[in-house]
């Protein structure tokens, strides 16, 4: 049976019909309305809140009338005509910095970085190597969960895979159309993304990446026909997906190793991509050792009680005296990832949180009535920052390097760009000993994808990918020791 459902998000009103056995979340995202669902409908993140009026059945099977009540859309099934109001999610900032590429080609090139959270696309004039247009958007698959695992879970049925696949392909086509009046002039498409996003774009099932031993179906790196993926592109336009190293070290990482030039370095460089996943590579022109740690969502605000992506109303900076800045210069409504890291650093510095991560007086720390940091939030941050740091330490030990051997630390990725290096060192996410050698490199994956629009770029990229080896952390006793060691906050005095 189906019911008429009126979905109101901001000024956008849609009327759709909702099946009794589909959750309201499924119906809302099915019609393309905006909704945040970091846990992908698992009922654990509590972010998919809606205001609902009408009769609904919850997941325990209880049906009742909801009168303008707040509820989780992933836990309700419609039983009558409904009116549903979603919180309008304004998109967060998307990194779209770019660089020139080698000139000498023909026509236009489309370079794309598909992140789990954001998508950045660029149009290049291949003859001059200049970027003509660029565009950043939120990844439309986000309504299916903030991390790759939720997407994998959704893609575990053929229909789900089809849904996510066409969503991202359509998004790329539309972004290309918006940047370029005549897409028939595009002669080459190059895409850098993590391995799961590459599978979804290519229409391959990522299911095997979701469970141990996390083996992908493909590592890509081959040239295909663009029109087989993106309708409306020329028959002879080629499409290239940057080569991946493993299920959790994708073409975005190899592209980053290329665009940052570390593949030429004779000294050791640590490359850290902090986005929704956290990937690390340590090496030099002789080769790289790579690993993946489960970092992301905690830093993107998805796991903290008042967390949010960077949007108006979010605290994005907290100073050491605990004064703060709010995006959009309004009253604080939430706190985004960069703000959370600053806040933890400031709470340590003011001795409100001790070195074990305990809030001394046991009370939530409030910035205002609505926005606070809880004891549980700090624990989540500890788990996430320790995973990244322990990943670094594991790579260093395995490569026989110590801090003094590291020439520089490069921070890439959507979240990395906004994270303050000093705060990250204060909470021990990055080693304070390397603070002065640490710098941001922006959207290295997008720049790498652009370089791969040229034949030389692609040749170089495949040699880089061959020189990368993968360190599995899941079953590593060394990682586990380092992980426990990295969990406390013992280093802030070295920084603040």
């Amino acid at each position, binding site marked *: 049976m189906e019911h008429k459902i009126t979905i109101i998000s901001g000024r956008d009103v849609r009327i759709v019909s909702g099946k009794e056995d589909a959750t309201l979340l499924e119906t809302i995202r099915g019609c393309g309305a905006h909704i945040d669902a970091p*846990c*992908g409908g*698992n*009922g*654990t993140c509590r972010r998919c809140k809606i205001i609902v009026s009408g009769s609904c059945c919850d*997941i*325990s099977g209880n049906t009742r009338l909801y009168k303008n009540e707040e509820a989780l859309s992933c*836990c309700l099934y419609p039983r009558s005509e409904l009116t549903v109001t979603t919180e309008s999610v304004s998109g967060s900032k998307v990194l779209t910095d770019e660089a020139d590429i080698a000139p000498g080609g023909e026509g236009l090139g489309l370079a794309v970085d598909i992140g789990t959270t954001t998508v950045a696309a660029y149009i290049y004039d291949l003859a001059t190597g200049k970027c003509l247009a660029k565009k950043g958007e939120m990844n439309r698959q986000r309504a299916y969960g903030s991390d790759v*695992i*939720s997407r*994998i*879970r959704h893609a*575990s049925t053929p229909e789900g895979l089809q849904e996510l696949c066409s969503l991202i392909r359509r998004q790329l086509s539309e972004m290309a159309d918006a940047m370029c009046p005549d897409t028939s002039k595009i002669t080459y498409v190059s895409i850098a993304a993590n391995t799961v996003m590459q599978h979804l774009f290519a229409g391959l099932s990522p299911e095997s990446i*979701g*469970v*141990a031993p996390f083996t992908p179906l493909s590592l890509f790196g081959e040239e295909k026909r663009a029109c087989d993926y993106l309708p409306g592109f020329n028959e002879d336009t080629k499409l290239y997906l940057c080569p991946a190293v493993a299920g959790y070290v994708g073409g975005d990482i190899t592209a980053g190793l290329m665009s940052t030039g570390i593949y030429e370095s004779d000294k050791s460089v640590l490359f850290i991509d902090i986005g929704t996943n956290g990937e690390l590579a340590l090496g030099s022109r002789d080769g790289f050792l790579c690993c993946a740690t489960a970092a992301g969502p905690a830093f993107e605000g998805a796991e903290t009680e008042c967390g949010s992506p960077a949007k108006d109303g979010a605290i994005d900076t907290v100073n050491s005296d605990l004064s703060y800045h709010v995006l959009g210069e309004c009253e604080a409504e939430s706190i985004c990832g960069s703000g959370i890291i600053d806040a933890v650093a400031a709470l340590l510095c003011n001795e409100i949180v001790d070195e*074990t*991560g*305990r*809030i001394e007086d*046991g009370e939530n720390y409030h910035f205002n009535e609505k926005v606070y940091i809880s*004891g*549980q939030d*700090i*624990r989540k941050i*500890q*788990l996430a920052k320790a995973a990244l740091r322990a990943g670094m330490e594991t790579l260093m030990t395995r490569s026989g390097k110590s801090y003094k051997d590291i020439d520089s630390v490069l921070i890439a990725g959507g979240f990395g760009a906004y994270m303050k290096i000093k705060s990250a060192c204060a909470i021990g996410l990055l080693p304070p000993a390397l603070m002065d050698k640490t710098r941001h490199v922006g959207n290295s994956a997008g720049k790498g994808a652009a370089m791969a629009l040229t034949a030389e770029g692609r040749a170089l990229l495949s040699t880089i990918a061959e020189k990368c080896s993968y360190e599995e952390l*899941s*079953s590593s006793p060394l990682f*586990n020791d380092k*992980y*426990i*060691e990295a*969990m*406390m906050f013992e280093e802030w005095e070295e920084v603040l």
Partner: protein
Amino acid sequence: MSIIAEISQAIQNGKMKLIKELVPQAIEQGHTAQDILNNGLLHGMNIVGDRFTRNEAFVPEVLVAARAMNKGTELIKPLLAAEGNQPIGKACIGTVQGDLHDIGKNIVKLMLESQNIDVIDLGVDVAPEKFVETVKTENVDLVCCSALLTTTMPVMEQVVAALKEAGVRDQVKILVGGAPVTQEFCDQIGADVYTADGASAAKKAAELLTA
């Protein structure tokens, strides 16, 4: 402070060296191994567990306390056996197939042990059949499944089904947990107990075994 209280305190502070000194002293003074275990070692570990539940202590502190407790129980093991001390029950625990996260599982194991429950650790990536086999051969009372990935949560449902199929479902209580697991999920798959953290899991387990 009595020496037994001192032992409890040393556990809370994770002082393994001190435990090595205090436990033999307590035996010397005529305390039974049972007394040292229940009112010293387990008492201290329970306090750590409660602090962990309230977010006052964290993973590393639980692990150092557990290390000290293990040292202590090792020292009194022969005496305990001689006194006829029996664990209150037996559990098996594992991270389900396809999942390799084990830190949470290890904490639950330590907490169960600190309730004087005998625990068989099946490790990570444990297939449903392995749980069944263990129930059949080891005579366990509790089956504990951990999953940290939303992609591996469904394996817990398979464990419940496999135990039913093998006709041993009613011999055991099934506990499920891990960050993405919820009470609703536990109910939905027909498991018996869900708790959000390790210390509460062990309390619940002890209740089930002594009920």
